[in-house]
């Protein structure tokens, strides 16, 4: 049970994030939902690499025979964080431009491109 707790948290986070993205009309809140979705995926990846009683995977700090957590997933998470920063920043800038030009950040009003 306790080992599955992070996965339950991942499921909850994905649920909350999807609800935010699908239901909120404010674009800033949608961007926040996307960031939360990204956080959920990051948590999922990090959890995959956890091993019972594992230590941080640092070569020079490792005692003989100690279990380490997997470093690969941490590298993946880090990369995803970097990508997430870029994505979020670009989305926020686009929202800023839209706010300047349309005077609103409401998704229902942001529909000059349709049909």
């Amino acid at each position, binding site marked *: 049970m306790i080992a599955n707790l992070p996965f339950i948290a991942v499921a909850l986070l994905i649920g909350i994030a999807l609800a935010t*993205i*699908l*239901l909120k*009309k404010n674009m800033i809140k*949608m961007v926040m939902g996307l960031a939360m979705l990204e956080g959920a995926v990051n948590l999922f990846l990090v959890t995959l690499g956890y091993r019972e009683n594992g230590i941080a995977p640092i070569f020079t700090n490792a005692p003989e025979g100690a279990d380490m957590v997997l470093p690969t997933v941490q590298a993946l998470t880090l990369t995803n964080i970097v990508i997430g920063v870029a994505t979020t920043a670009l989305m926020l800038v686009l929202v800023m431009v839209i706010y300047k030009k349309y005077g609103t950040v409401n998704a229902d009003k942001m529909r000059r491109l349709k*049909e």
Partner: protein
Amino acid sequence: MIGDLLTGYGFWNPLVWVAVMATGLLVAWLIWRCGESDYDKGTEQTKPYLSGNDEPEKGAVHIRGGNMYWGFTHALKGYYDKLIPLHSGVVNDYLVWFLIGVIVIFVVVIMV
């Protein structure tokens, strides 16, 4: 032979097609040459005849894009009335469609 694209049933050879079309055009042109030229340039014959009316302004005779296929969209009105509102332009709806697609594909793959 060069240019033969086998399609399972038969083949398609664009080079032969081009040669046949070129021959056909050549023959047509030769037949057209044989006729006698029966109009004189610069006379009434070359002007458009619109039941005796004057030629309208240039902008007025061009059929604009929005007026074409009016009949087509009108005939399929029921279909278009359903389809066009789906493309609502609201980004939440786009993601709802993504979720629906995921669920439908999942159910299909699991069930079958």
